[in-house]
């Protein structure tokens, strides 16, 4: 298999398989989670439960008092790489073209120089949060294989994409194929790892907020 065949495979069969597993996993888990249900709380709500849910969604995006000083790397690094990832994924012109090809919707992209800068900052932030996880004893103690693994499958698409655009290490064709392959690995593992928070983060926050609000303890 030469590099163009490799690229064609990841753009064709590989993408087909990865998207299929991704869709299967995401729909499966969402249906399973939302159908679990909870027993109805018969007590009269002490606080507007719905509003409390929305409140929690916002509140948990902001560091609690004192926490920012205690672990600034977690907050700054976390915010930088999450926003960076969103910008890269949704505002790099070729990515928009892919989404258009799959879903038929599109929007204007950002100039590639800006995406390039965002990518470098994102990579740096991800390395910083990884080093922080290794160096802080508590974080290291709490980390399991899944934490290291999900970091790697998130980091690799960004790194290979940047290397491809910059023409570093390997010929563009091979690096582009590796980039797409790494995204396919990410798509396959996303529904079955903690990366699924991309779909559940706001739902679970709302749920916690609503339950606690019902009990009179808005958080």
């Amino acid at each position: 298999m030469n590099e163009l065949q490799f690229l064609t495979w990841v753009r064709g069969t590989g993408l087909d398989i990865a998207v299929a597993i991704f869709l299967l996993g995401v729909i499966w888990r969402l249906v399973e989670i939302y159908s679990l249900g909870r027993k109805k709380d018969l007590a009269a709500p002490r606080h507007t439960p719905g509003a409390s849910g929305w409140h929690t969604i916002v509140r948990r995006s902001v560091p609690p008092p004192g926490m920012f000083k205690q672990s600034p790397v977690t907050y700054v690094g976390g915010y930088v790489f999450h926003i960076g990832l969103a910008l890269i994924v949704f505002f790099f012109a070729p990515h928009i073209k892919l989404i258009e090809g799959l879903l038929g919707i599109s929007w204007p992209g950002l100039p590639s120089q800006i995406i390039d800068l965002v990518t470098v900052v994102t990579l740096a932030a991800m390395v910083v949060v990884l080093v922080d996880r290794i160096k802080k004893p508590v974080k290291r103690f709490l980390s399991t294989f899944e934490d290291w693994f999900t970091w790697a499958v998130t980091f690799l698409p960004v790194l290979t994409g940047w290397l491809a655009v910059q023409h570093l290490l390997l010929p563009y064709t091979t690096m582009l194929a590796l980039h797409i392959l790494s995204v396919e690995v990410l798509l396959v593992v996303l529904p079955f790892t903690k990366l699924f928070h991309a779909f559940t983060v706001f739902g679970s926050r709302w749920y916690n907020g609503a339950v606690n609000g019902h009990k009179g303890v808005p958080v």
Partner: protein
Amino acid sequence: MSDNRILETLAGQGISRRAFLKYCATLASLMALPPSAGKAFAEALAKAPRPSVIWLPFQECTGCTESITRSHSPSIEGMIFDMISLDYQETLMAAAGHQAEAALHEAMERNMGKYILIVDGSVPLGLDGAYSCIAGRSNLEMLKEVAQGAAAIVAMGSCAAYGGLPKANPNPTGAVAVSDVIKDKPIVNIPGCPPIPAVITGVLAHYLTFGSLPELDHLGRPKSFYGETIHDRCYRRPFYDQGKFAKTFDDEGARKGWCLFELGCKGPVTYNACASVKWNGGTSWPVESGHGCLGCSEPDFWDAGSFYKALSMPANPLKLAAGAAVAGAVAGIAISVSNKARKGAAKTGHETTTLADLEKHHE
């Protein structure tokens, strides 16, 4: 014939020494060789005996020959035909039938071990090679025989270099590249559909001057011509970086000459010199004329998805997605039904523990 010196032949045709030196310097700079190489070219080419060249056409469309001849009269590259002794080329030679075959064998015998073999077209292996025959012999048989006495082989065009169009899925004739058949000779691939004329003249001049083939990349292509992608050298590249794309072939972006990436240009993954050497004596090239690069100098470019689909788009429509979504929903519903059943079973199986029960155990 083949003992004639190149410069004598050229002088006989009214080509001045000055024009010849200019040609050598152009060739050297084209191949990214140091300026001194121009002089070396000139000295070596002037003294070199015209080498015998045998050109075998296999499963091909004659486009490669067309390409070379296009450069003949208007451009100085045509001189190469006076620098080599083209002893067998079916399209260009006057001889036909037995005469042609005799010319081939005569050239082979006279220059055994010294001639250059140019091949255009792929070699069919299916049905023992019966898909393409010349003088009643299969291409495979002919290639093996002629390659034996060759000093070097030039695989001209994407078909000879990689199998090209005949090898496209489902490859009914079992077409393969020259390098799939011949393993014991130096082979230089000059892919393209067709290749740029200056590239073959450059390779031949290099061979005549230095006695060796130019530096090749991992796909057997001369690095000097195939070292960079079309995209890297494209004059429309700034528009790519600014995110300015033509969306159709006749919109405002197309008229303003914006990047053709979204219209399926394969420039980013195509290694060739079109963007710098251009075509038809430097007149223009595909992207300049408004059409994206097809990637014709890359292996299996016919099967690399549609020519009009952006590289970042799926090569084929996704076939599994809908089925997978349904399977996911079914799996989710099945598990939720099983969860509900377990919950229900737990509820019915629940026994109320009374104080009396606890006291009983306590005793």
